[in-house]
């Protein structure tokens, strides 16, 4: 089967090419400027243009899909990727399934697996869908020895949307997806100052600090790049220490890949205790200093 693969991101592109190189013959379409020629795509098409946005990119991809006889379209899951998949699904009248972790073709039917109910469950579906978006971080990119053919495609059509300004964000200071040890703070810390003790524990463990959705997005006590959860970072450290985190499904789905989970929470009925290897029922402000002291011994 011949697959059209798109992502605006280099990391997602190389991940998808690694993940599916034994299943499909793939051409990569991307707006990234990074070198993606050695990840197993037959062709790499670089999309260029003055005002690239989801609408004119989708229209060009639809045209290429029809002209080049692809069987399916695989798109990296990002805000842009999901938008493009929804537009492509309408332009080409093809069904789409987003945020999948698995794509298994068999006899014209494709089986997919994706999170459902906010990450509480995984749903396996079979369909004749032709468009899929794939979650990031499913695989570490592996280069191949052969090189793809490089092509350029310029998109002349203007977007209906105008970019009137670009606001630089502070450079990312942390990559939680790559951290070995993460100490995460939840609503249970109660105040921003509570992060100090979380940081101390992280320092002792040589780990990074993460946070739940309320801590990062509602209270802004931590930056959004530290948010662990289905809508934030999906992490897989060796050790994940959840402090004052109740364990809502959204959060669990983001840290389920952790090898060991330790939970500290004063509510013994908190759902996090069902998702941990070791737990302590107690006030984190009493427990953590003791834990730090014990670690220093």
């Amino acid at each position: 089967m011949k697959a059209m693969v798109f992502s605006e991101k280099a990391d997602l592109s190389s991940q998808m090419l690694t993940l599916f190189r034994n299943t499909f013959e793939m051409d990569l379409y991307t707006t990234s400027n990074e070198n993606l020629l050695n990840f197993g795509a037959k062709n790499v098409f670089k999309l260029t243009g003055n005002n690239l946005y989801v609408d004119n990119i989708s229209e060009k991809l639809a045209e290429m899909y029809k002209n080049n006889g692809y069987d399916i379209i695989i798109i990296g899951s990002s805000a842009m990727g999901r938008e493009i998949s929804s537009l492509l699904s309408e332009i080409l009248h093809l069904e789409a399934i987003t945020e999948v972790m698995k794509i298994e073709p068999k006899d014209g039917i494709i089986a997919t697996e994706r999170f459902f109910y906010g990450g509480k469950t995984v749903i396996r579906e079979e369909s004749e869908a032709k468009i899929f978006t794939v979650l990031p971080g499913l695989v570490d990119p592996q280069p191949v020895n052969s090189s793809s053919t490089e092509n350029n495609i310029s998109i002349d059509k203007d977007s209906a949307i105008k970019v009137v300004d670009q606001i630089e964000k502070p450079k990312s200071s942390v990559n939680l997806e790559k951290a070995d040890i993460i100490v995460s703070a939840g609503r249970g810390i109660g105040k921003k100052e509570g992060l100090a003790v979380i940081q101390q524990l992280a320092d002792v463990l040589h780990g990074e600090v993460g946070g739940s959705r309320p801590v990062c997005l509602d209270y802004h006590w931590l930056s959004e790049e530290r948010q662990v959860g289905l809508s934030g970072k999906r992490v897989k450290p060796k050790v994940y220490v959840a402090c004052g985190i109740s364990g809502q499904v959204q959060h669990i789905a983001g840290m389920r890949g952790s090898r060991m989970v330790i939970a500290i929470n004063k509510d013994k009925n908190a759902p996090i205790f069902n998702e941990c290897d070791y737990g302590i029922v107690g006030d984190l402000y009493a427990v953590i200093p003791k834990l730090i002291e014990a670690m220093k011994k």
Partner: protein
Amino acid sequence: MYNIIVCFKQILDIDQMKVDESTQEPILKNLPYRLEDLSKNAIEEAVRIKEKYGGKVIGITYGGDQATLAMKEALAMGVDEGIILKGYKENNPEITSDVLAKKISGMQYDIIIMGNQSADSYTGLVPGKVARKLSIPLVGNAIKLEMADRRVRITRTGEEKNLVLESNLPALVTVEQEINEPRLPPLIQIMAAGRKPMKIEEIQVNVKSTKKVIWNRAPKSERKRIVFEDVDKGVAEISKVLKGEVK
């Protein structure tokens, strides 16, 4: 003055959802419904546009028997009129986008607001599909929204940069959680919501989807679940384990 449409979704309360230990399937019986998280942000933003620039907000939801509850909450938050499209049976963006677009195509509107992804299914397909069916621009993932000269201007989050985007109206804008803090309507507004116009229309679905659910179950948790209620004992045990992990 703007004609504003806000589309929102009612979902099962996933945070109260339990899993059957033997089958790993979710137990849906007696599970309450709630207004979906980003739907609240969408409603809030629609009402703020009305309050700031003038106009009228019409709320649309494609739902089941319980949808009146979600609509009443939206009306209490400041939506002026509600339309319930009744007949929702399954999570399927093909169907939902078709139902919404058919209804909206016969209406007057300048701007449509939706959440960018729902908290239960996370497909994120409905806004783009509706926008394309209506042949209007999709302006996605807003964390800030302003209207000026019959145009909409949003700030969209990006990984390294945030983009400020502008589009002519009519347009469909999706919002992220950061855009606002949804209001909790005071009791008087909840009471008054009952007097606002609310239409219920039965929907016949004739969209074909090839999607079949094979299973839907919670991943098996292989965690040890050794939980200490004695803090000192827990600290002693856990620090021992941690020392084995931390170099």
